[in-house]
């Protein structure tokens, strides 16, 4: 039996298992609101991975803490209301000693790609550190699960990393780069300045959200978002869940949620049956391993309706989600449910590559066969260089690991396999491209920017993203446009705006050591 700890939530004692996140504990009450939006709407966690800032609460008197990124600990005091406080003591500000670190190779991101680079480069004798915003190694696909050990393959990689000489820096957010080869990060113990001869970016991807009426209700999650929250300890057993959106992730999420006792009612896939059939045919020809994976899903998901050509048109409920209305293009119907897990594909986390000046093409970092970006000594791997899943991420991670260690011969052997993995990237993008119908989902009052509550109506007459930002405040909140930016790109065709440090909200004291 897990050890249980006691914390205070809105003045009430709550017991929770150890190693859960605060968000997961709060979500033990279904449909709970973690904050009130700027126009007074209740909001709950959406992305589950520290990106959307909807799960902000006050912890021990400090407002605006992302509850999905913070583990519970005995005696902490959490408040979901009046999210505006700050430590009020008047101590003279004491300059925190900045910690200086230096490595041959710094890997940003601890998913499969980052782990593969770190292991490969460390084995070749490089001084390596791997850093992540997350408290645990694994990224999204190998995310730490509080209730279940990692699968054998993932655990092997994790163990190789822990046996290697690579240093692991947890819960560190890189927010600035004062000069080439130098990064500043905020960590729980203070600011850190890291110098590295070579930087490998493995920042991964986040989910794309398409706004529709009711998508801001507590109980509406990202697909990967709900999975991440359940892995962090959110109870889901017995809950009625609809999984919607697009891409292979929907199947993985439904499979996982069912394994944790969720009552998955429907998987709604927006792409057409014809596109899916062509995709499956391609797998048969080229990727027998992926066919086996798909067959496994099909077996475990039997009994759950899978509907292609189907997407949500609205989410409804009083203060929290109670039902979802869906369509197949001709007919509409309403399904009662407790949670909606919806993701409309993945968007690469290009903020740090942009800050470093890396060229971006069609939303991804441009890389050559060695995974080099346009900036000297900066590499990009995994989803940053094209959404392609685990095999491609590991390959690219290993290639970059060999290249940074000067072992081009070993890299060359892997580059042919990478070419095949890239073919899968294009087929994925084509199969799961978003249908135009989804652009018609928002009504005038649908909120597009959840931080600042900017509506579709306010945005549709704006000429460009910069004007929209200045005149409506879209993207000006703490998520810095990470959620609304990709939505606005889909709805209005706007480019992402400019990127400036800090690329993540940081305590002002972290800016004090910026040279």
């Amino acid at each position, binding site marked *: 039996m897990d050890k249980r700890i006691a914390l205070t939530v809105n003045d009430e004692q709550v017991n929770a298992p150890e190693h859960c996140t605060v968000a997961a504990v709060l979500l033990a009450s279904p449909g709970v609101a973690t904050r009130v939006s*700027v126009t007074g709407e209740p909001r709950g966690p959406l992305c589950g991975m520290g990106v959307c800032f909807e799960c902000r609460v006050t912890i021990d008197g400090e407002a*605006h803490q992302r509850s999905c990124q913070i583990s519970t600990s005995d005696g902490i005091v959490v408040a979901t209301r009046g999210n*505006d406080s700050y430590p009020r003591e*008047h101590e*003279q*500000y004491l300059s925190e000693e900045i910690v200086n670190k230096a490595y041959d190779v710094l890997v940003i991101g601890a998913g499969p790609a980052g782990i593969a680079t770190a292991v490969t480069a460390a084995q070749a004798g490089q001084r390596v550190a791997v850093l992540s915003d997350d408290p645990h190694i694994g990224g999204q696909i190998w995310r730490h699960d509080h209730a279940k050990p990692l699968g054998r393959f993932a655990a092997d990689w994790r163990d190789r990393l822990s046996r290697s000489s690579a240093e692991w820096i947890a819960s560190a957010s890189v927010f600035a780069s004062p000069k080439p080869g130098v990064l500043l990060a905020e960590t729980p113990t203070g600011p850190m300045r890291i110098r590295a001869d070579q930087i490998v970016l493995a920042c991964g991807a986040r989910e794309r959200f398409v706004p529709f009426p009711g998508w801001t209700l507590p109980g509406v999650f990202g697909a990967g978002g709900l999975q991440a929250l359940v892995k962090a300890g959110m109870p889901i057993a017995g809950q009625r869940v609809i999984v919607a959106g697009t891409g292979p992730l929907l199947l993985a999420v439904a499979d996982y949620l069912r394994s944790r006792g969720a009552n998955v009612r429907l998987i709604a896939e927006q792409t057409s049956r014809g596109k899916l059939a062509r995709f499956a045919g391609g797998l048969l020809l080229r990727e027998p391993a992926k066919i086996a994976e798909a067959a496994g899903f099909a077996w475990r998901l039997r009994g759950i309706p899978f509907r292609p050509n189907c997407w949500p048109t609205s989410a409804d409920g009083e203060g929290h989600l109670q039902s979802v209305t869906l369509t197949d293009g001709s007919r509409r119907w309403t399904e009662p449910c407790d949670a909606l897990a919806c993701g409309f594909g993945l968007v690469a986390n290009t903020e740090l590559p942009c800050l470093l000046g890396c060229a971006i093409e069609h939303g991804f970092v441009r890389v050559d066969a060695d995974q080099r970006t346009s900036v000297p000594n900066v590499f990009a791997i995994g989803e940053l260089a094209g959404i392609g899943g685990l095999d491609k991420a590991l390959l690219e991670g290993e290639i970059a690991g060999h290249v940074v260690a000067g072992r081009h011969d070993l890299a060359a052997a892997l580059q042919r396999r990478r070419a095949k993995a890239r073919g899968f990237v294009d087929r994925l993008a084509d199969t799961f491209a978003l249908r135009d119908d989804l652009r018609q989902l928002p009504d005038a009052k649908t909120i597009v920017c959840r931080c600042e509550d900017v509506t579709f109506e306010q945005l549709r007459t704006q000429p460009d993203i910069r004007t929209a930002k200045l005149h409506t405040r879209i993207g000006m909140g*703490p998520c810095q446009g990470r959620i609304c930016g990709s939505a606005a790109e889909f709805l209005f065709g706007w480019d992402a705006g400019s990127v400036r*440090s800090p690329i993540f909200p940081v*305590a*002002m004291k972290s800016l004090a050591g910026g040279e």
Partner: protein
Amino acid sequence: MSAATCDVAVLGAGIVGAACARALAMAGLRVAIVERATIGGGATAAGMGHVVVMDDSDAQFALTRRSQQLWNELAPQLPDAVEYVQTGTLWIAVDDEELTAARAKYAYYTSRGIVAEMLDADGVARIEPNLRPGLAGGLRVPGESVIYPPCAALWLVNQALERNATLHRAEAKRFDRTTIELSDGSALIAGAIVHATGIGATRFMPSLPIRPRIGHLVITDRYPGFARHQIVELGYIKSAHGADKESVAFNLQPRKTGQMLLGSSRQYDVTDGTVQPHMVTRMVARAFEYMPALAALSVIRTWTGFRAATPDSLPLIGPMPGWPGHFVATGHEGLGITTSLGTAELIVAHVTGQRSSLDLNAYLPTRFAEVAHG
């Protein structure tokens, strides 16, 4: 080539151009506004939006005071998006020398009818409990306010458009007397032309004595009530008007949203608008000397902007020698948000011959020899 005609063309829809366009349209003139990019998207978007009276010179006082009166008169009409809020200004003195400066400011303001109040150390701590203990005191000017500049500029432009002004999404390429050739291939024939393009005015009129002076700002997430006044260190005056190549001063603004907006920095001879980490560091360190509790607040954005600075800290408003029919309204440095409305009143007077309560001669570009004889 197609050519539209108007009584006055206003080049630039920053806050100054927007205010001029509105005032000219309200005076009954047919106005054409020429702006290629976002309305209020240049120096206006980078500014703090503090509507403040300043007293470096009698001319500066007159212009800022008149402008503030105009803003306060407009306040009831301003839409929510302009985020007008009367915060008052609190000038902070750290020692006796600065307290003496505060007293001088108090005497200057009160003798000219401005409500102000001297505060001792306890008084300052009472109204702004997040300031560190042990400050010498301060001067509170309660009638001052804060606005969100880009939406203020947008509202002013919309007011002009409601009075039949036209908006031309282009920039001026060439002038033939008062005919303007625009970047979209069209032309405008204007009775008069107002150059309200900030630093950009020097492109056509290189003799104008304006230099870009970059500033940095930092904004936090929402912490309603953390500070109530715009809080400015009295050392700001040294920073703003010293000749130092680089300077910082503590200047904190509580926005209507509950966000805290922190300034300020000043540097000459920087042409790249990239945020400079060493300046942010200096600014933030300066702020912690006054308000250590700021250290824990979450910062969500930093940015820079270029002020159009003149050698005597006064704007350039009036006819341009050698350019018949052309007027300039530029060089507002860090006070353009405040002084836009007074500038507009002066421009209307110059263009139409209407009377103004302000002295038309005090801000003429011809006060500088290089302009007068250029």
